[in-house]
């Protein structure tokens, strides 16, 4: 039931003490090792000694994604590169990705936290975990992989895609835990039905689903169609990756692993910390990370925190399922997409920025992204070949930037609705 009972069930008083020590230590490390943090703290007149415990956390300035971009690639690392053993990256908004680095201890912590997640959903050494998250720069695949190995279960590193093979392996290898995005899990369920494979033919017990927002309705559907407990996992590469927080079998909020992270919920407009239970933007401070510690990182995810004790026995605070975003980021097939990334591509192709719109839909449980581009005088040609070349070029370059498939549609001017003069950039038809 627990992987590390000492920490997972630590009483809150001791937890608070532990967090305070670790926070004080983190603040010192970033102050002395990361000039960017030092400058930020000095600009508000803070010295490391001013932070004596968790209660002082709100004195610290926030960190935002732009800070990571401004210091690309290694500027925010708190250790020399010789200590870094792995890099992950998430797609950037204007070409450059956000790069994150891990020391051996960071990878170790991450594996520990994912092992907690797996144990928490009832997995053990005899479990077979099929990791259908993408492997590579994306944190999903390797994150789940290392945690499974740490726990001693059998990992199938199948990565995403090739759904028929996923189903074949699930059946033949006796997969007990499936880890992927919830929308992909639904797609797998659909493929199973097409192939005439029933949930009773499988040994599946649990699904660990994350990297995109999903609803309780989707949970019910997944549980019913796959015959599993569907568990929500949360994480972001800037903080670590999947395993920052996860549901227990009570499925009533995601426990944030507070011995490694301090969560806060703030008013996204004023930056003010909100009382427990209020809905606002999640801010996370890492308190054990060495490679890339983040102090009060603004996740842009909207949630609330519940400090009530949980029936599972864990003492760590629970965040609600992510309710939305405070920015215009979209999550498409688990990939973060900002409209500005597409804007950038179009700008490079046309020289000027044409009117465009992103239309996101979920077809057969898979997210589809259509990019509508209005054809202006500059882009227009009377030759079909040239317009098709343009269409192909936009498609290719967006795909290269985002790493997901898109359909580009050239449309007539004024097709894209302009309420109060400003074109609506995103139409999200997904009913999550």
């Amino acid at each position, binding site marked *: 039931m627990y992987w590390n009972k000492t920490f997972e069930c630590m009483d809150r008083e001791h937890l608070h003490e532990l967090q305070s020590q670790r926070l004080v230590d983190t603040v010192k490390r970033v102050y002395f090792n990361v000039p960017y943090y030092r400058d930020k703290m000095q600009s508000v007149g803070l010295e490391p000694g001013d932070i004596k415990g968790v209660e002082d956390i709100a004195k610290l300035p926030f960190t935002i994604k732009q800070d990571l971009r401004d210091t690309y690639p290694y500027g925010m690392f708190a250790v020399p590169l010789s200590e870094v053993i792995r890099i992950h990256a998430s797609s950037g908004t204007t070409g450059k990705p956000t790069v994150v680095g891990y020391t051996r201890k960071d990878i170790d912590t991450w594996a520990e936290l994912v092992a907690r997640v797996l144990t928490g959903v009832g997995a053990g050494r005899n479990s077979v975990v099929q990791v259908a998250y993408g492997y590579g720069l994306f944190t999903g695949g390797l994150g789940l992989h290392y945690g499974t190995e740490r726990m001693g279960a059998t990992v199938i590193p199948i990565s995403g895609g090739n759904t028929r093979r996923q189903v074949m392996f699930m059946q033949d290898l006796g997969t007990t835990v499936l880890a992927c995005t919830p929308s992909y899990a639904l797609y797998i369920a659909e493929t199973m039905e097409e192939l005439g494979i029933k949930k009773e033919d499988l040994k599946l017990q649990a699904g660990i689903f994350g990297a995109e927002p999903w609803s309780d309705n989707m949970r019910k559907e997944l549980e019913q169609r796959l015959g599993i407990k569907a568990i929500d996992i949360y994480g972001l590469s800037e903080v670590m990756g999947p395993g920052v927080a996860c549901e227990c079998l009570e499925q009533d909020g995601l426990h944030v692993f507070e011995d490694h992270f301090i969560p806060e919920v703030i008013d996204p407009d004023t930056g003010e910390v909100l009382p427990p239970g209020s809905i606002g933007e999640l801010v996370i401070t890492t308190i054990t990370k060495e490679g890339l510690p983040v102090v009060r990182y603004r996740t842009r995810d909207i949630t609330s925190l519940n400090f009530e004790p949980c029936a599972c026995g864990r003492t760590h605070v629970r965040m609600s399922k992510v309710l939305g975003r405070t920015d215009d980021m979209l999550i498409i097939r688990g990939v973060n997409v900002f409209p500005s990334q597409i804007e950038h591509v179009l700008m490079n192709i046309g020289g000027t920025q044409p009117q465009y719109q992103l239309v996101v839909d979920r077809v057969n449980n898979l997210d589809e992204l259509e990019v509508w581009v209005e054809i202006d005088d500059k882009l227009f040609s*009377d*030759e079909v070949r040239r317009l098709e070349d343009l269409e192909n070029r936009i498609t290719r370059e967006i795909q290269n930037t985002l790493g997901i498939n898109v359909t580009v549609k050239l449309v*007539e001017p004024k097709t894209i609705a302009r309420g109060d003069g400003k074109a609506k950039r995103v139409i999200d038809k997904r009913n999550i």
Partner: protein
Amino acid sequence: MFVKQVSVFLENKLGRLATVTKILGDNGIDISAMALADTTNFGILRMIVNNPDKAVSVLKEAGFTVSTTDVLAVEVDDRPGGLSAVLEVLQDNGISIEYAYSFIKRAGDKAFILFRVENPDRAVDLLKNTGIRVLEEKEVYAL
């Protein structure tokens, strides 16, 4: 020597072509030739009209993306093999044709074909030297 063709970007949506022809009709613009190139998602309408400048301005006003392109209007004999005589000249001289379409109107035993070629100036010279008639802009608009 060239004829101004009006090209319009159209989405493959019901009624788009009708909208264009209505706008032109309401403005007293006469279409003498047209061709529609289409793909799965969009089309390009190409037209020869009696007043290309006005056509461009009224269509733009209605929100269409419009451009003009120089094309050649060539007279061919309206008999079997009439067109191939013209094409041979272009082919023999290595001038490729981007697209071609025919006029709706006919005059006696002649037909008119519109060509968009990669080297229009040279094409005109070659055709004329071979005795093939290339129509003047004014003649075409008056057809």
